[in-house]
């Protein structure tokens, strides 16, 4: 421990930290913008500057290490003015359209400007003007709102290792863009939406379908059906000011009914279905029919990443569709038949934590009966806004149950939403299918938690099954590299495109006041909410779900049957442009 002085008062802090880290721990939250604890230090915005005695200039507290006896001022008159002017300079080159902006009220820049006390502009001048990129199914890029903090560039290159975004040009003309300023839709973007999560302003937002949905919800001639992904319920409360980790399952069902949906189904049901198909596929592969290791296929961002970055591994990936697409396929066939409606008259809306699902919904190979299986994908953020916009009080609503017959799920389906969940769910079922015995110890600690690459094993009938779990596309690269070098090391690999799995999806609520996007504590609480739901269920294995048993009996036959293959499986193919995974992560 060393002693530093902040604003003349001594504090004992640990050595080896930055000024910002040390100050955070003793109650000084120095204003910041480009800093993100999970990303490399940029030191670009200069909002977090402090005075250090003996230094000629201000230093960026995010980058400067503390040392014994250091005297720091965080709030002197001159410093406050400099910091204020820096934030004003950012504002001066930013559209003055807060009232009509998607992020009004939940914008980091707005908050920062307010806390700086900027009441008057001194330096207004020329402002940038660029085209918005609306080409992507999932992510809208508006360079006019970009303040060049570089968090998107860093998350894309350091965490996701997709390197879609980079700084281009220089100086006042610097713009964050994909290579050649090509439209997002033609780039290697995996549509994961992590750029949206970390963006402090509305330079990146999801492609918004709320107005279209409102319109459709008023259409009396169609049947409006929603499905809700597991991790939506784990996070939506945050958009309503609740602490992270409060699960809101039945409340959303009730809210969606009030919004105008006729049926609300649970994607967790189709997660159970996925386990039946994928688990069976895995057992087939174990018996020599197909390549090992098998890799999961639930995550849409990962699937796009597979096709562009790892086409050599396509055969290793399970052919099972994602739970969302399985549900949509069942809605437009099985359920349509049940309610005796033409699938054309059904609107299938998926409420997802995910922006990549918007892309998945657009895949032509997923069409059912000549129709898109999923008509619309709405993120947690969008649905939260719709609920608020409709005057529905999510926090004070009497919960309702999911509708039958696609609403009942096991705890295995619930934990799909967090990293390791799919693998855990698969093991719960595969074990029984393989050995004929019920796995009793179903909580598999080795593959829970937020380590980038997790390894575990189960013994099934004396056979050791080695599994790996990776979350975030950067970690995926790592585990795949291991598997490429040693193909027999794993039998089964789970990959989720986003950090933390779906709970950290690109469509989840923005970080609230003073919290950090993708904060690990917040992700932990969301995961814990799902694990809690699982623990409280009596049915915790997919194959024990009576409605799953029923759908096979009534409609699909058995897992991997021709009917199941037709509706629940798909295929992938290599796509251009090819993504490149650099050996060395260079500075963009």
């Amino acid at each position: 421990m060393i002693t530093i002085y902040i604003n003349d008062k001594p504090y004992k802090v640990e050595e080896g930290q930055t000024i910002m880290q040390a100050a955070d721990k003793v109650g000084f939250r120095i204003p910041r913008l480009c800093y993100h604890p999970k990303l490399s230090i940029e030191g670009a915005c200069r909002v977090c500057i402090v005075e250090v005695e003996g230094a000629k200039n201000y230093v960026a507290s995010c980058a400067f290490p503390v040392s014994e006896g250091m005297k720091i001022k965080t709030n002197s008159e001159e410093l406050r003015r400099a910091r204020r002017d820096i934030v004003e300079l950012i504002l001066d080159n930013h559209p003055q359209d807060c009232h009509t902006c998607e992020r009004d009220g939940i914008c980091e820049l707005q908050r920062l400007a307010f806390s700086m006390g900027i009441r008057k502009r001194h330096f207004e001048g020329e402002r940038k003007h660029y085209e918005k990129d609306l080409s992507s199914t999932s992510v809208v890029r508006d360079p006019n709102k970009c303040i060049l903090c570089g968090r998107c560039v860093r998350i894309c290159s350091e965490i996701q290792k997709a390197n879609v975004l980079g700084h281009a040009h220089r100086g006042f003309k610097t713009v964050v863009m994909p290579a050649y300023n090509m439209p997002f839709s033609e780039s290697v973007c995996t549509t994961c939406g992590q750029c949206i999560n970390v963006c402090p302003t509305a330079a990146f937002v999801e492609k918004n379908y709320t107005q279209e949905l409102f319109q459709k919800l008023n259409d009396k001639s169609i049947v409006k059906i929603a499905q809700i992904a597991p991790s939506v319920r784990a996070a939506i409360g945050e958009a309503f000011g609740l602490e992270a980790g409060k699960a809101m399952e039945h409340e959303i069902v009730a809210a969606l009914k009030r919004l105008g949906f006729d049926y609300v189904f649970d994607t967790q049901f189709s997660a159970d279905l996925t386990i039946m198909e994928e688990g069976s596929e895995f057992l087939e592969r174990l018996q020599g029919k197909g390549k090992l290791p098998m890799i999961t296929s639930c995550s849409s961002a990962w699937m796009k990443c597979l096709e562009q970055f790892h086409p050599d591994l396509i055969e290793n990936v399970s052919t099972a569709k994602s739970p969302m697409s399985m549900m949509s396929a069942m809605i437009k066939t099985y359920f349509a038949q049940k309610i005796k409606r033409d699938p054309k008259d059904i609107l299938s809306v998926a409420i997802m934590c995910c922006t990549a699902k918007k892309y998945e919904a657009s895949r032509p190979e997923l069409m059912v009966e000549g129709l898109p299986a999923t008509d619309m994908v709405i993120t947690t953020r969008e649905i939260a806004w719709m609920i608020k916009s409709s005057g529905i009080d999510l926090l004070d609503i009497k919960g309702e149950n999911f509708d039958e017959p696609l609403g009942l799920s096991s705890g295995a389906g619930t934990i799909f939403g967090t990293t390791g969940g799919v693998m855990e769910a698969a093991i719960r079922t595969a074990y029984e299918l393989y050995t004929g015995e019920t796995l009793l110890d179903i909580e598999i600690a080795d593959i829970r938690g937020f380590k980038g690459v997790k390894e575990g094993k189960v013994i099934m009938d004396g056979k050791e099954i080695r599994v790996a779990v990776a979350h975030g596309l950067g970690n995926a690269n790592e585990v795949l590299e291991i598997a490429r070098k040693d193909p027999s090391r794993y039998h089964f690999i789970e990959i989720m495109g986003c950090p933390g799995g779906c709970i950290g999806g690109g469509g989840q609520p923005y970080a609230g006041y003073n919290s950090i996007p993708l904060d690990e504590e917040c992700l932990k609480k969301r995961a814990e909410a799902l694990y809690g739901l699982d623990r409280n269920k009596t049915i915790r294995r997919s194959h024990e779900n009576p409605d799953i048993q029923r759908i096979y009996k009534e409609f699909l036959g058995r897992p991997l049957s021709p009917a199941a293959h037709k509706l629940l499986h798909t295929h992938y193919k290599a796509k251009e442009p090819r993504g490149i995974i650099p050996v060395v992560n260079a500075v963009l």
Partner: protein
Amino acid sequence: MPSRYVITLCDGPSCMHKKSKEIEMVIKSELEKNGLLEKTRVMLSGCLGMCKKGPVMIVNPGYTIYGGITEKDIPEIIQKHLLKKQPVARLVIDEDHLYNRFFRIFGDVDFFRKQMRITLRNCGIMDPESIEDYLALRGYEALGKVLTEMTPQQVIAEVKKSGLRGRGGAGFPTGLKWEITAKAEGKEKFVICNADEGDPGAFMDRSAIEGDPHTVIEGMIIGGYAVGSSRGIVYIRAEYPLAVKRLEKAIVDARQEGFLGKNILGSNFSFDIEIRLGAGAFVCGEETALIHSIEGSRGMPRPRPPFPSVSGLFGNPTLINNVETWANIPVIILDGADWFSSIGTEKSKGTKVFALAGKIKNTGLVEVPMGTTLREIIYEIGGGIPNNKKIKAIQTGGPSGGCLSEEYLDTKIDYESLAQAGSIMGSGGMIIIDEDSCMVNIAKFFLEFTQNESCGKCTPCREGTKRMLEILTRITEGKGEEGDIEKLQRLGNMIKKSSLCGLGQSAPNPVLSTIKNFRVEYEEHIKNRKCPAKVCQSLFNYSIIDKCVGCGACKKICPTQAISGQAKAKHAIDQSKCIKCGLCFKTCKFNAIIKS
């Protein structure tokens, strides 16, 4: 057979443009005609710094400098100078010129009076493409001494003792930098020569490498030995093809002679150098940006610490010094730290090279001991201001530096004194400004440059310099507002203290120093909408006074037909048509047109 005559022809870009290559051919054929080819050595030198008077050549014996020569002059020079030992007087460059003294280095003590050439010691007197020439001038002797007689610690101690400070601008003690790098741990270590000289008007590094590439190489090898590195890199501007070519050749030659490569001179020490080209980004002169550029990335600086000495290229300890700093090393080793530190002032030792330019009689490279006053450089070396104009300001340090007013003429050249006066040493640009220049306009010129070269990473520099430039532009256009000066100062001080790298931290200097020293000019522009130097076009009009005899010359030359008037009667200018090109003003023989 040793040559009896030596002809050194400048091969710098300016002289080449003026056909120095063609002249070389004529020289050779003329020599042949006169049977002198065997007895004469014809050398091409790097830029001799007398671009205005080019093409320039030096003929020895006599060390006579001829300027402005053409192919036609060659026969005369060869016959008269070489055969009859009579210099061709009409082509000889004025005896009093700085370079003239320099080239008469042999025996002419006068030369040492104001200039002292350490880093440029060989420039112009050796063939830069000949390692033999360099060897003859005791080249690589310092390396030999280091490898055979000194431990790395002793080398570092010697450099520390010399008091040498970084010549790139900031003046960090070189020996200390070496020591930190030597002590830092890493997989490997790198030694870098920063030759990314980009200040407008500065060409010290280019000339040094073009004229004597081996000195820099030798300095780097010694640096590598001292810090325990085996990989050296010269990062040089792509805009300097001749310097690159000479450097390449010098590296190949040095390798061949065993000064570079494995087990240098039979020792256990191995070191090699590669060249990396820049691609046109001023900010790459900043060391962390330079490192990113070498790594193949955008040249954007990063926060320090960690400093490159600890974590630099590819995360390894890296020793970066600029060209001039490296060129001092062999001299310090051979002549000793004691001698070196006897030159200069208390805190700034040795010499400094300046590129003297602007409104001054003799422009070019000047190497002077630290402690020389600005007055000595400007009046005794530079020959003063041409056309009997008054000096107004001295700009040092290029776009990162400041403008000093006349009252600072007796300031001594050293890091601290210049900083105290409100400017910086910088890498060595020195521009003399006379009364015809508008200081607001000059500040705007420099800020335009840095604004254009800002990498765009940090907010203060990217956004702040843009706003400062907008304010300056409106002041020069006569749209300045009350409070603009205060805004410039407020932004400028904030940018200085808050920016990420040296470029941003120094970008406001030209503005802040001109406000400090020439505030009245700003106020004139803003309050009275007047440009005292009559430079800012929006702030003055041309008008015709009674002296006009009605000759019609102005009317004829006016490109916009803004002037009217009967012959032999006073003419008048239609201000709505006038574009202020100034042609009438220059044309009028009767001083009848005035700026007002």
